[in-house]
């Protein structure tokens, strides 16, 4: 800080006081950052430690269900199948927390390759087909046959697509429609825009930002119809941003939502 020798003593005092306050604020920020890092590490450790016993429970239950230790009667098999699917659901949630922790810290490195994004979309559609069929939903890919190859981390893009398509199915009533469409924007159309849309219940404008925030759910009440960690879209945002892309939503309550994310088509090669 440069101060003139002729400055008013009261001004000098005030500047000193402000400097002290700024130092104090910086200390608080540093402390909060350190605490946040500790909490993240704790979340990561706990999640990892939860996985091991859960994996053992699922394997034991599967051994029983498959009759490897003797045939079960149908009621016993149903009950043991419940243990397997409950355990699986728990592991999926733990995995979501772990993925979030990794994507939010510096633990993720992108492994970029060239791949056909329309084929990836079709794969995710096929994986979600049984779930969609249960609700008599259609999942349509509207275009994309002429797109160039994308240079990105295939697993991470798949994660983002699976999350957006899974959400669309979850929040669209029976008999509804889910679609995926591509467009290009920017100078020389160097950015690919991927849209995942649905004609489901939609999101209020006030909640557009909230849905991408970690641990936030539009309906966070214990009686909410859709349970989850509330991390899915926060992870999707982190993974898209790692690719220097952006993610956003446009929606109308009662009419449906359209989620968009961008991927650079020609990023610098590794």
């Amino acid at each position, binding site marked *: 800080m440069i101060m003139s020798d002729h400055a008013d003593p009261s001004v000098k005092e005030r500047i000193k006081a402000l400097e002290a306050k700024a130092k104090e604020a910086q200390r608080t920020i540093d402390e909060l950052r350190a605490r946040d890092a500790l909490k993240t590490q704790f979340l990561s450790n706990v999640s990892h430690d939860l996985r091991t016993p859960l*994996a053992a429970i699922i394997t*034991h239950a*599967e*051994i029983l269900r498959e009759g*490897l*230790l003797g045939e079960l009667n149908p009621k016993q098999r149903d009950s043991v199948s419940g243990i397997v699917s409950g355990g699986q659901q728990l592991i999926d949630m733990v995995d979501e927390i772990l993925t979030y922790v990794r994507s939010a810290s510096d633990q993720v490195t992108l492994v970029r390759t060239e791949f056909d994004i329309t084929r990836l979309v079709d794969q995710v559609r096929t994986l979600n087909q049984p779930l969609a069929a249960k609700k008599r939903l259609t999942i349509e890919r509207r275009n994309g046959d002429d797109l160039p190859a994308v240079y990105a*981390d295939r*697993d991470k893009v798949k994660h983002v697509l699976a999350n957006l398509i899974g959400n669309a199915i979850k929040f669209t009533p029976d008999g509804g429609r889910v679609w995926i469409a591509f467009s290009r924007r920017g100078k020389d159309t160097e950015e690919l825009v991927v849209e995942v849309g649905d004609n489901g219940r939609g999101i209020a404008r006030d909640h557009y930002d909230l849905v991408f925030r970690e641990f936030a759910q539009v309906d966070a009440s214990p009686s909410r119809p859709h349970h989850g960690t509330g991390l899915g879209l926060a992870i999707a945002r982190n993974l898209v941003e790692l690719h220097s892309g952006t993610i956003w939503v446009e929606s109308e309550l009662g009419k449906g939502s359209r989620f968009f994310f961008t991927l650079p088509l020609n990023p610098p090669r590794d």
Partner: protein
Amino acid sequence: MPARILIVEDSPLVTDAFRVLFTAAGYDVDVAATVVEAIERGTSTPVDLMLLDLTLPDGSGLEILEALRQRGSLPRATLAMTGHRDSASRRACLEAGCADVLIKPVPIGELLRQIERHLA
């Protein structure tokens, strides 16, 4: 003679589950919980297939492969097991000589099919 599987895993909970599974499926089962133990077990008796956890208390599971290779005791196949989908660690496993990388918990049907395929 039944094929011999060496389970390298530091959690007794998971080891127990696999021991029950592989014994019921008719395999001979041996277990090791550390890198040192796995190298010792893998060298003393020939192993047909090794199921390898990557994170062990005294090091990485991949060190075992290297040590067994140097001693001429590599199993016919090694299947790595990991808790998370990570393309970088998958690549490292395949480069180190693992036949495949499985994500825990592996559905038992798939696990038994994989083992059968690699032992054929």
